[in-house]
């Protein structure tokens, strides 16, 4: 029943060709992703005069780490504000990611596995908060936080971001849970687990890739959110990174190297997190799942 030799040869030749194409595409993808970034790095170590040189020299005459050092270790108004913003961003983002993941995963499981009225349209109601642009609802939200004295605190942003991100966690994880065969749940429940127990013990571990990518999504939404942070914060006590970086922009002038430096530093935490978890994203179905045995 083995395939004929000629077929096997052309198969492996096909595979080799496919692999070459794969490497080629990977190189192209890497170039497309990294080229603008390389330019950003170059800008961060250039002076403003370097950037207005024509014809453009790709490497500046005197690269300087001055701006990066200034932001990380300097002691002037905008450096202090920048570092305070890092702290605020980390706090707000971690908290809102945690809240939205916990509540979202619970709800997603219910949507995926349980029957109840309103199962189909309730998700759209939830999504309305994200679909409506911020300009329409910002004033009442601002009034509310002003009245409880939470303006310029991390709490305001944590609450707002959690409310925006949770619908997505629900939708994403519901889709993901629906791909997990119900046999897994049933097996766990036969063993005496409750619904919650089945979720915790069996379904979640199998859904690690989905959980990681959803958590990344939640993290990056909060990390990058601009409009609500702009309106709801005022001083170092509350400003997050996007706002601190935006404050580098003057009325008539833009210190682009400074902006680039700030952007690079701000991109680090999500990149670090993604790098750590990138192996998790492809964990795949664990051995011993019902499917194969």
């Amino acid at each position: 029943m083995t395939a004929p030799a000629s077929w096997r040869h052309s198969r492996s030749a096909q595979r080799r060709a496919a692999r070459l194409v794969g490497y080629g595409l990977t190189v192209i993808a890497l170039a497309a992703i990294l080229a603008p970034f390389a330019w950003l790095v170059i800008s961060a170590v250039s002076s403003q005069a370097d950037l207005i040189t024509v014809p453009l020299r790709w490497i500046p005459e005197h690269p300087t780490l001055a701006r990066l050092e200034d932001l990380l270790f300097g002691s002037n108004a905008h450096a202090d504000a920048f570092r305070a913003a890092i702290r605020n961003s980390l706090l707000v983002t971690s908290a809102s990611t945690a809240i939205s993941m916990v509540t979202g995963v619970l709800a997603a499981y219910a949507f995926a596995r349980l029957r109840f009225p309103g199962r189909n349209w309730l998700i759209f109601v939830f999504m309305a908060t994200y679909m409506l642009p911020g300009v329409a609802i910002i004033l009442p939200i601002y009034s509310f936080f002003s009245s409880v004295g939470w303006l310029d605190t991390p709490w305001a942003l944590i609450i707002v971001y959690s409310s925006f991100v949770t619908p997505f966690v629900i939708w994403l994880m519901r889709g993901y849970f629906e791909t997990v065969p119900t046999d897994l749940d049933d097996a766990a429940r036969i063993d005496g687990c409750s619904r919650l127990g089945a979720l915790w013990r069996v379904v979640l571990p199998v859904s690690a890739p989905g959980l990681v990518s959803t958590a990344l999504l939640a993290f990056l939404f909060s990390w990058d959110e601009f409009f609500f942070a702009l309106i709801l914060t005022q001083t170092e006590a509350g400003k997050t990174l996007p706002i601190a970086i935006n404050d580098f922009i003057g009325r008539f002038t833009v210190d682009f190297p400074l902006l680039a430096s700030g952007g690079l530093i701000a991109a680090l935490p999500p990149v670090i997190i993604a790098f750590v978890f990138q192996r998790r994203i492809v964990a795949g179905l664990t051995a011993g799942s019902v499917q194969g045995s």
Partner: protein
Amino acid sequence: MSHALVSLRSRLQGERWVAVAMIAPATLVILAITVVPLLRAMWMSLFHIVLIRPGVEPFVGLGNYIAELTSPIFWGAMGRTFVLTVSSAGVSLALGLGLGVLMNQPLRGRWLLRSVIILPWALPGVVNAFMWQWIDHAQYGALNALLTQVHLLDTYQNWLGDPGTALWMIVIADIWKNTPLVALLVLAALQTVPKELADAAEVDGADALQVFRRVTLPLIMPMLLVALVLRTIDSIKLFNTIYVMTGGGPANATQTISLYAYKTAFQVFDFGKGATLGWLIAFVTVGFVIVYLLLIRGSARENRP
């Protein structure tokens, strides 16, 4: 037999309470802070509320909506939004799909691509906007420098100041920043495709492309739909990038509905119209989503063996 029915019904009823308990926390988080503002926004859209007429807030019913829906500025903005959204979401979906598949292949060094892919997405939006504005700069831009140095171009082009190209430069900036999101979602979705199915199809004589179309694609379709919806919403809401790169110009060539809504609400401070535009944007977004769902359901019905 009746025993099974009874236990089924009681199980369903019990399930309802479990469902409520599991969904309650999310409902609280989502709606507690936004329900009132959402309703207030709807209420405000029925009045004429302008900053420079404090205290004078006549009820206009659907007047704001009618004014906008008959305004050429509105429809111009809608048209540009449509072009931006379809191209940006469509291209990033296609590219993201390709990248996700690529990252799933057993190639050496794929860990590099997987780690690097998040960089554009992680960059703060405001920095991305300025970076692309600088790259596309008509006198000093890296894009012009690169293209002229490899002789693909003779002279520096005014990418952002020309009504014919400005919107496309914004599309490029949006695609570059957001394709990683699609790629990661696709990668995660591909993990749910059991390898045995693909192997079985191959043994049956299908080549790689057929395996992908018949086996893999239908299985990751739900995730693709989510990615598409996310990209659509983000493209419709895109603001900072456009504001920084072109300010809505040249001559409104890049004024999308989000920019128009922002200018109305926060520059002109016409709050009634701002709320109106906000809700119109939401309706448009829902419209897109409904179209996607119908398309998906249609194609799913076609693909069923």
